[in-house]
């Protein structure tokens, strides 16, 4: 039932909105609204019940294991939320004077310094509100760098075929042509293809390391030399930073610009699709182009650096300073874990992934890159099972929902057929992983004995399989009271 179907004309919440209409109204008649917007008229209790019930139809980290590859679904500590929501933080206006926000700015400055250290970059800007925006900032800076050097013939960005869809979408949004390069049988970038692709048109290379195939790109230093020798710059997509936190710094790998997803590695909530935060770090050569605002600490006072301080900046990407409340949560998380907690994250995430990979392999699942270590994630391919039984990766994913586990990432990366990208974050215990292995074994048995049942999954969710085709063909995007 939709919230609108609970609505009764003139039902109101008398304590939450002003009790009366005011007498003064200077809005000219021709600019006044005449129609009533379609908002429900429901009591507070009905609202609370409705949205509580809706929440219960969701899977979430707080209720289920989410082995969702490339998404780093780790536990979101409660303290990060409650301390970021202290009333002084919530009520602070973004344009309030800097001297009324020194406590908040201190947190932001320290977060910048911590992220610089973790990534090995020269400077960090916190303004980016999501991974894709971090990419947009990074590629815009690469463009600004080449333009500032009068190097305007560089029109191409090189991207491995295993990359997230945001990489090519970002390059195009920044006015570049995408040159896709293939992956070799071991899951590394094909170096011959890279050498053939670079040249005077190369503006840069976007790379995720460890890659979305769940393996560490061993020749990253050589890739860096090749791209730099051709005059291009290197972009690090930090989606998988969790795998190498405290172990390897992107700056040491030769990257010129990076983004890190705080809603992955630094445990800020995914919130059903955001808000995220994706601070951007740069090496010296890109420092002048970093987006503003940036927090500076001078003579014991914190202040915002703006266009006046940074005349070559690419500019602003948000109305204020990005997703401040998300940044606060990440700051609290890093302070809780401390320096010693950083490398532990990557160690236990990697332990979980390699353990789960080993256990699934023992069950007979085919590992896509069997000769490699898993990073914090790995890929199972269902190709052989599908050819033999007709059961697809998506069928298995839906059957996992029935057994109380969120599905792994399916059909990504695109180059591995019938793939499941599995990432068990470090906050998951061995018992949880063992329960997941047991569920995978049950499904394997079901595929052997009753494949049609598996193909028709899910069976035990509030809904059976959703008709996506109908959703796209008979578009119904807003509720119509007339039916």
């Amino acid at each position, binding site marked *: 039932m939709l919230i609108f179907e609970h609505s009764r004309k003139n039902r109101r919440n008398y304590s939450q909105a002003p009790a009366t209409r005011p007498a003064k109204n200077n809005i000219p008649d021709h600019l006044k609204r005449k129609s009533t917007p379609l908002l429900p008229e429901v009591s507070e209790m009905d609202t609370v019940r409705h949205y509580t019930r809706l929440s219960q139809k969701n899977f979430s980290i707080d209720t289920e294991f989410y082995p969702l590859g490339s998404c780093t679904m780790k536990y979101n500590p409660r303290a990060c939320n409650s301390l970021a929501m202290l009333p002084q933080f919530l009520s602070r206006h973004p344009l309030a004077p800097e001297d009324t926000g020194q406590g908040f700015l201190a947190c932001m400055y320290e977060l910048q310094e911590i992220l610089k250290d973790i990534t090995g970059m020269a400077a960090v800007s916190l303004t980016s509100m*999501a991974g894709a925006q971090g990419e947009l900032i990074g590629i815009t800076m690469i463009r600004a760098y080449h333009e500032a050097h009068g190097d305007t013939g560089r029109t191409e960005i090189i991207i491995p075929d295993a990359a997230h*869809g945001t990489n090519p979408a970002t390059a195009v949004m920044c006015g570049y042509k995408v040159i896709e390069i293939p992956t070799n049988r071991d899951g590394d970038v094909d170096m011959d293809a890279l050498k053939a692709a670079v040249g005077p048109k190369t503006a840069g290379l976007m790379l995720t390391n460890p890659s979305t195939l769940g393996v560490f790109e061993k020749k990253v230093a050589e890739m860096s030399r090749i791209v730099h020798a051709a005059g291009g710059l290197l972009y690090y997509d930090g989606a998988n930073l969790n795998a*190498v936190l405290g172990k390897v710094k992107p700056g040491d790998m030769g990257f010129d610009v990076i983004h890190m997803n705080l809603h992955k590695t630094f445990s800020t909530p995914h*919130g059903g699709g955001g808000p995220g935060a994706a601070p951007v770090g740069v090496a010296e050569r890109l420092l002048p182009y970093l*987006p503003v605002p940036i927090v500076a600490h001078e003579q014991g006072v914190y202040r915002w650096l703006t266009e006046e301080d940074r005349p070559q900046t690419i500019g602003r990407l948000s109305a204020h300073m990005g997703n401040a409340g998300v940044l606060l949560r990440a700051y609290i998380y890093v*302070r809780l874990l401390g*320096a010693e907690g950083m490398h532990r994250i990557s160690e236990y995430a990697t332990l979980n992934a390699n353990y789960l990979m080993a256990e699934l392999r023992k069950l007979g699942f085919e590992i896509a890159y069997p000769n490699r270590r898993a990073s914090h994630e790995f890929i199972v391919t269902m190709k052989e099972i599908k050819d033999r039984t007709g059961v697809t990766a998506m069928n298995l994913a839906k059957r996992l929902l029935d057994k109380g586990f969120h599905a792994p990432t399916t059909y990504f990366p695109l180059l591995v057929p019938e793939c499941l990208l599995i990432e068990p974050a*470090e906050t998951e215990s061995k018992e949880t992983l063992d329960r997941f292995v047991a569920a995978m074994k049950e499904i394997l048995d079901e595929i052997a004995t009753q494949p049609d049942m598996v193909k028709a999954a899910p069976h035990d969710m509030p809904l*059976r399989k959703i008709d996506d085709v109908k959703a796209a063909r008979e578009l119904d995007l807003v509720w119509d009271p007339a039916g």
Partner: protein
Amino acid sequence: MPFIPHTEEDVAEMLTSIGARSIDELFDEIPAELKTGKLTQVPPGLSEMEISRLMYERAQQDGFYLSFIGAGAYEHHIPAAVWQITTRGEFYSSYTPYQAEASQGTLQLLYEYQTMMASLAGMDVSNASLYDGASALAEAALMAVRQHRTSRRILVPQTVHPVYRSVMRTIVRNQAIEVVEVPYDPATGQVAIDKLDQFAQEEFAALIIPQPNFFGVLEQVDALTDWAHDKQSLAVAVVNPTSLAMLKPPGEWGRRGADIAVGEGQPLGIPLSSGGPYFGFMTCKQELVRQMPGRIIGRTTDLEGKEGFALTLQAREQHIRRSKATSNICTNQGLMVTAATIYMSLLGPEGLYRVAAHSHANTVALVEQLEKLPGVKKAFHSPFFHEAALQLSVPADKVLNRLKAQGVLGGVLLENHYPDLKNTLLVCATETKTAEDLDKYTEVLRQALAASA
């Protein structure tokens, strides 16, 4: 170990299963020369008690003020139920709803949001959010250029929020899209129609139309919308969602209504919190829906014909279309939309109207009181919504400092963005301000003016 549940026995068993001697061995594919040294700038870990103490101290340092600042972010009362429900773990810690069967709660909520937002804007459809108002405007400009096909120029009045213009320029410049600015009329604070007419013979993909504009002033939206349509440009509205309860919605502007309406969603139940996270909303006409960026939710059925919800029109998006997507956006501001949907449900049409009407009435009352002070006058003689520009006869920065010392944040200086508007304050009094608050502002301003004279 904080947030890591493994016991020593667990680790030993897991390593045995893997066939490795140590956790360190699992990193043996990383070249030794890349392995990092120590982290020097990350302090040692704190307990929950210690970090709580630190954060309480930092929060206390920032304190509370009686604020009359608006300029794109507005203080409104947020009912207690909004964030209590929004921070339930099932909303807070869930993922983007790709697995529809495991995400019906979020998906249905977003469908309800799309319905509310589209209706509020008087438009046909809405997406499930963008990052914030500024980036939503930039996406609207890109969308207009895709739809228009022949022009790569956008006409933007200087009455649009200056930072929105700046963000838009940063984003569209990459695609060689030109942003052309139209000055404001210094008497009315509205788009200068005579200046606009200089562009009558040129081709533009879109005209951006703010309502209310950055000065709080109401624009002649019908005439502007028709002006755009008469020259085959799209009309793109930038609106305050609270104001839509009172003001004619973009879908009803002019003869045909605006084509796209975007804005900052923060006033709908999102705390100010130093600038974010907020959310951008985007609504449009049905015929433009395939050009929209971001997530869109559709109502459909399951195999057995039961009502359900799913992400739809995904062929526009980066995870399917990669380099041919309408935008690179992936993560949006889902949790903020959750809060906004609960906020709009709790208030209903009459509640939201009253919030808007009291914000308007309070600002009208404040301006009337302040205008009576010697050395204060309205910068523009036009109707306004819940913000107004006031010109002072003395240096306004000094006045603001005096007000701050009395615990009052008196507004923002317009001179930083509009060099012609010397000593001019943009002030806002939402429904959160009482008659006593308005009197306090009037009294401390009176004192500050006297001291500065």
